[in-house]
C-alpha cells in the first residue's frame, strides 16, 4: 500500500537546501493521492446526496453497497485470473457483474427496508438502515470470510514521474472513470426525462405526483443509480488499495457521507466537490500532520479529519459549501 510509503517518505532525512523543492513534490504527490481518493468519495457521496435530496433519508447502508461491489468483483477477478483474458477485460467483466447485482441490492433495500417506513418518524428509517448495514456486513462475512482479501493485482502498475511525485495508471484510470461517470450522471439528471422527474420529486413530491410522476418509481431509480455508482467505486477502491474486506464499506461510507455534507447534502455538484476536497484534505492532513505537530500526531489520525471537517461544517455552515440554506422542512 502506498500509505506506508507516504509515511516513510516524510520521515526521511532531507538536505536543507532541497527542502522547499521536496516539500513541493510531497505536496503534489499528496494532491494526486488525495484527488484519487476524493474521486472515489465523490462517487459514493453522490449516492447519499441523491437519496437525501429526494426523501431526506440518510441511507446509512449505502457504504455496504460499495463493499458488496468490491467483494463481488474480487470473486469474479479471482475466477477469471487464470483464463488468459486481457486484464482490462477481466476488470470490466467484474464491474459488469458487480454493478447490476449492487443495483438489485439497492432496489431491494429500498423496497424492503425503507418504503414501508415512508411517513414514519424520522428516526425509524435511520435505525432500519443501521440494521440493513449490519445484515449486509455479516452476510458478506459468511461468504467472503472475516479475513482481509488481497485484491488480485492483475493490471500491472505503471508509474509516471513528475519530479519526485508519481502518478500511476490506476490513479489515472480512477480519476478518468469517475469523471466520466459523474458527467454521465449529470447528463442523466439534467438532460433526461427521468432526471427531470427526479428533480421535480426532490423539489416537491406531492406536486410532482400531480404532474404524473410516480414517486415510488423515482425513489427506487435513485437508489438503483446510487448503488451502481457505489459498485464501481467499490471496484476502483479495492483495486487502488489492493485489499477488500467485509468492513471496508462502513468507514468509506461514513467519509463519503461527510463529503456529501461538506458539499451541501442534496446537491449533486456539491457531493462531487465535497468528495474531492475531503480526499485532498485527508491526504494533505495525513502527509503534514506529523511535521506540523512535531510528530505528536502521526498519519494514523487520518481518519479523524473527515469527522472534524464534518463537525465544523455542520456547526458553521450546515448547508454545506454549495447547498442552499436548509429550510425547516423537518
Amino acid at each position, binding site marked *: 500500500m502506498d500509505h506506508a510509503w507516504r509515511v516513510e517518505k516524510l520521515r526521511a532525512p532531507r538536505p536543507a537546501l532541497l527542502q522547499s523543492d521536496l516539500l513541493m513534490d510531497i505536496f503534489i504527490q499528496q494532491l494526486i493521492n488525495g484527488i484519487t481518493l476524493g474521486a472515489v468519495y465523490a462517487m459514493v457521496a453522490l449516492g447519499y446526496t441523491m437519496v437525501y435530496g429526494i426523501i431526506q433519508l*440518510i441511507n446509512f447502508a449505502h457504504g455496504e453497497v460499495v463493499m458488496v461491489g468490491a467483494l463481488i468483483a474480487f470473486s469474479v477477478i479471482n475466477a477469471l485470473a487464470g483464463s488468459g483474458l486481457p486484464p482490462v477485460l477481466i476488470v470490466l467483466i467484474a464491474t459488469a457483474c458487480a454493478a447490476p447485482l449492487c443495483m438489485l441490492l439497492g432496489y431491494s433495500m429500498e423496497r424492503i427496508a425503507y418504503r414501508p417506513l415512508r411517513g414514519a418518524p424520522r428516526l425509524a428509517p435511520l435505525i432500519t438502515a*443501521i*440494521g440493513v448495514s449490519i445484515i449486509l456486513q455479516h452476510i458478506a462475512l459468511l461468504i467472503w470470510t472475516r479475513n482481509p482479501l488481497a485484491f488480485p493485482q492483475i493490471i500491472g502498475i505503471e508509474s509516471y514521474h513528475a519530479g519526485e511525485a508519481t502518478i500511476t495508471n490506476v490513479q489515472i484510470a480512477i480519476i478518468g472513470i469517475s469523471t466520466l461517470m459523474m458527467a454521465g450522471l449529470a447528463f442523466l439528471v439534467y438532460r433526461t426525462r427521468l432526471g427531470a422527474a427526479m428533480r421535480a420529486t426532490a423539489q416537491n413530491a406531492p406536486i410532482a405526483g400531480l404532474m404524473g410522476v410516480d414517486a415510488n418509481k423515482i425513489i427506487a431509480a435513485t437508489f438503483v443509480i446510487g448503488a451502481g455508482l457505489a459498485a464501481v467505486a467499490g471496484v476502483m477502491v479495492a483495486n487502488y488499495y489492493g485489499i477488500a474486506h467485509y468492513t471496508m464499506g462502513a468507514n468509506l461510507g461514513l467519509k463519503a457521507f461527510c463529503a456529501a455534507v461538506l458539499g451541501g447534502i442534496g446537491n449533486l455538484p456539491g457531493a462531487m466537490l465535497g468528495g474531492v476536497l475531503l480526499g485532498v484534505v485527508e491526504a494533505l492532513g495525513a502527509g503534514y500532520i506529523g511535521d506540523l505537530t512535531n510528530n505528536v500526531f502521526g498519519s494514523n489520525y487520518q481518519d*479523524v479529519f473527515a*469527522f472534524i471537517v*464534518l463537525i465544523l461544517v*455542520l456547526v458553521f455552515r450546515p448547508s454545506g459549501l454549495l447547498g442552499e440554506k436548509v429550510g425547516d422542512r423537518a
Partner: protein
Amino acid sequence: MNALRNHPQAKWIGVALVALALLALPFALASAGTAWVRIMNLAILYILLSLGLNIVVGFAGLLDLGYIAFYAVGAYAYALLASPHFGLHLPFWVILPIGALVAALFGVLLGAPTLKLRGDYLAIVTLGFGEIVRIFLNNLSTPINITNGPRGISRIDAFSIGDFSFARTDAFLGLTFSGPVKYYYLLLLVMVAVIFINLRLHDSRIGRAWEAIREDEVAARAMGIDTTRVKLLAFAMGASFGGIGGGMFAAIQSFISPESFVLVESVMVLSMVVLGGMGNVGGVIIGALLLSFVPEILRFTVEPLQQRLFGRMLVEPEVIRMLIFGLALVLVMILRPGGLWPSAVRRRELSAGREAR
C-alpha cells in the same frame, strides 16, 4: 386479576418477591457455573447503558450513535486512576463520580455545538464523535503514553472498601460470595438507583420538557423551554450513566482496550433501547436482557447443534448474533415500531398513524 393488581398489599408482595428472586439469583446462576454470574453482570451493565441512552433517545428523542464513547471515557477514567499504569490507586467511590462528571463534560462538549442540528445530522455527528474518541484511545500512546494504545490497560484495581475487596471470595453466613457475586449485588444496587432516577425523571417537569422537545421543538420553545439547555441536560445525564457503567466495567474486567468501545457496541445499546421500547423503562430493561442473553444462549445451543448436524461449525454464534440484531432492528421498525413493550406515548403515536393511513 385487575382487583389483585390494584390491591396495594399485592403490589408490595410482588415487589418483595421480585427483590427476593433478584437476591437469590446469583446463587442459582453460580450453581450453573460462575460464567453465568459474569454474563448476568454484563447484562446489568448493558441495562445501565440502555437506561442512560434511553434518556437521550427515548425521552428527548435525540439519536446518539456514539454513546459508547461515554462508556469508554468512564472506563478509561477509572483505569488511569486505579491501575499500575500511572501508579495511581484511588478508591472507586472517588473515581466513579469523577468518571461520571468527565463523561457528562464530554457530553456537553459534544452537544453544545451540535444540538442545534436536525436529528439525523446529530446521529452522524455523534457517530463521528464515537469514532474520534476511539481513534484517540488507540493512538494516545505517543509521545506521552496516556492510553497505552491498542494494548490497553491491564491490572486495573478491583473495587474495595477498606479491607473488603470485591475481587476476593469470602464466606458469610455459610454462603460463598465469589468476586462476581459481590459485583452482582453492587451492580444490582446501582441498577435499582438508575431505574429509580429514570422513572422519577420521566415523571417530572424536566421529563415533560424532554417529551415536548421530542414532539415539537418549535412549540416547546414557545412554552418557554430553553431547548438547547434541556437537550444538553439529557445528553449530560445519559453520558454520566455511561461513565459510571464504564468505570464498573473497567473494574470488573480488570483490563480494557479500545477494542471494547467500537461502533458495534453503540449500535448494540441502541438496539436494546429500540427493541425493548424507546422511552419505556421496563421495555428498555427487557431489550437489554434479551440482547445480552440471546448471544450466550446461542453460544450454548448453536455450536453443539452445528457440530452434531454438520460435524463442524459453519456459522459462528457471533455472526448469528449480529444477523439477529440487524434483522431485529429492521423488523421491529417495520412491524412493531414502538418496540416489544412500547411506552404509552408511542402506543398513541402508532395508533394515530394507523388511523391516518
